[in-house]
């Protein structure tokens, strides 16, 4: 049964230097508060896994937490580049960043294989592209029944998965709804898991279309109200598109970026809700 603990305690216990960490949430429910806590605790040499690195990994990369990035689309949606990601790849700042690059379909299937206890996943994908020549973890495979040539990717089994959800009960059962992305797969594929939630409630009222993650399948749950900002939590907040646009300027320059992170993330006097802003 998942234990409900404060966020700083959960991150200190679950995330270690050198770990592979998957923080998922497809545009929606991105676990920013947990990402900021990892930055404050100064974790290093992480392998960061995420379909869309988004601003949260731009921040982790720019603050020097990452050694390697496994991803499928590294942009600021509708705005442009992730400048800290680009600076790391193009100029090795603040440190060299190894990359393992996929398509969305490839990573989604790798999580499914991880959650399913399979060594790899099969898909119709990547054929004819230059991705297999750059990513060793994309290989051709022949169907044993039809002889058709398809593509295989190895399972992703992160050391830790971190996702954000709308709510949990005191036993650590978690409920999330709206765009649910690959969060369920990431949690079930991981060795350890942390779910941050908007609120802890006495009882989870059933909700049509919601994904429920039973507490016994999760390691730790932490309350982090507002913890998906500038992403959003349907029913609690809306996506802060103005912040995504503002990030383009904040992150373009190294010094401006570091100053912003100092004021808004590293400064512990910032409240939990401000930490996401």
């Amino acid at each position, binding site marked *: 049964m998942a234990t409900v603990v404060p966020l700083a305690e959960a991150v200190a216990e679950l995330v270690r230097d050198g770990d592979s960490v998957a923080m998922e949430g497809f545009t929606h429910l991105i676990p920013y508060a947990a990402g900021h806590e990892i930055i404050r605790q100064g974790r290093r040499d992480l392998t960061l896994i995420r379909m869309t690195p988004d601003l949260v990994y731009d921040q982790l990369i720019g603050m020097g937490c990452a050694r390697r990035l496994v991803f499928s689309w590294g*942009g600021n949606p509708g705005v442009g580049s992730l400048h800290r990601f680009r600076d790391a*790849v193009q100029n090795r700042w603040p440190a060299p960043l190894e990359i393992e690059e996929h398509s969305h379909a490839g990573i989604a299937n790798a999580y499914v294989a991880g959650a399913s206890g399979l060594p790899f996943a099969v*898909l119709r*994908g*990547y054929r*004819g592209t230059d991705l297999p020549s750059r990513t060793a973890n994309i290989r051709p495979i022949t169907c044993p029944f039809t002889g058709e040539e398809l593509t295989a990717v190895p399972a992703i089994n992160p050391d830790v998965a971190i996702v954000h959800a709308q709510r949990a009960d005191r036993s650590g059962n978690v409920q999330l709804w*709206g765009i649910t992305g690959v969060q369920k*797969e990431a949690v079930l594929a991981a060795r350890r898991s942390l779910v941050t939630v908007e609120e802890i409630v006495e009882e989870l009222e059933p909700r049509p279309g919601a994904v429920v993650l039973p507490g016994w399948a999760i390691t730790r749950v932490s309350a982090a109200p507002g913890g998906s900002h500038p992403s*959003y939590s349907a029913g609690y907040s809306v996506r802060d598109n103005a912040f995504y646009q503002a990030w383009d300027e904040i992150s373009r320059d190294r010094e401006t970026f570091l100053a912003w992170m100092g004021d808004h993330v590293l400064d512990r006097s910032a409240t939990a809700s401000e930490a996401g802003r």
Partner: protein
Amino acid sequence: MTVSPAGSYTSDEMMTVAAARRLRSGSCFVGIGLPSVAANLARRTHAPDLVLIYESGTVGAKPSRPPLSIGDGELAETADAVVSVPEIFNYWLQPGRIDVGFLGAAQIDRFGNINTTVIGPYEDPGVRLPGAGGAPEIAASCREVTVIVRQSPRAFVDRVDFVTSVGFGSGPGDRERLGLRGSGPRTVITDLGVLEPDPATCELVLTHLHPGVTLEAARAATGWELAAASGLRETEPPTAQELAALRGLTGERQ
């Protein structure tokens, strides 16, 4: 600004309107940016029943304005169904259920191959672009693909620096050889005109020029020797209704 009976309009507006006109009924897997604006314009004007599908898992989304991201809340709130990301790619895209894929590009080559990964060498890129996202499988599996991209010598290159998504590979027969089930890029809409693959060679040739654009200008904006189709035509300028709908969509965008 070009002037039509409907008033003046920009080359980007002409491009978006021309792209929207290609969509009728059926389903469309929508890429981010220009494709999303065009697909939403089609649904607002002549194609109200068009099913918009975003890779966030929102099937049949009916946003009141083009979303900034492919996962804005309004997409989920207005969708017929919201499915997981593995499901959208495995159950919906991969089997070839979706009629049209609407994609953008940083670079596109004469065979309609798309690069959204790097400009320059992969190990030491001049510009690191966002990467593949959903595009490789959209380009492989939708019944057909429309690409929307501004035309310039930097974007329209003889050979892309990196094949992120396959058009016709290196020519006729490549899609079949690779087992790609969709028919590939049937239309490339730019701010200057429209390109379509030559049926015999698969090379993109110019089939339409937008009003006021010359063949010379289109050729100067293309990094290969651009051929014009024998029946080269002029695009109908945007109607007053199309322009009003488009400006209503983009003006409201926050």
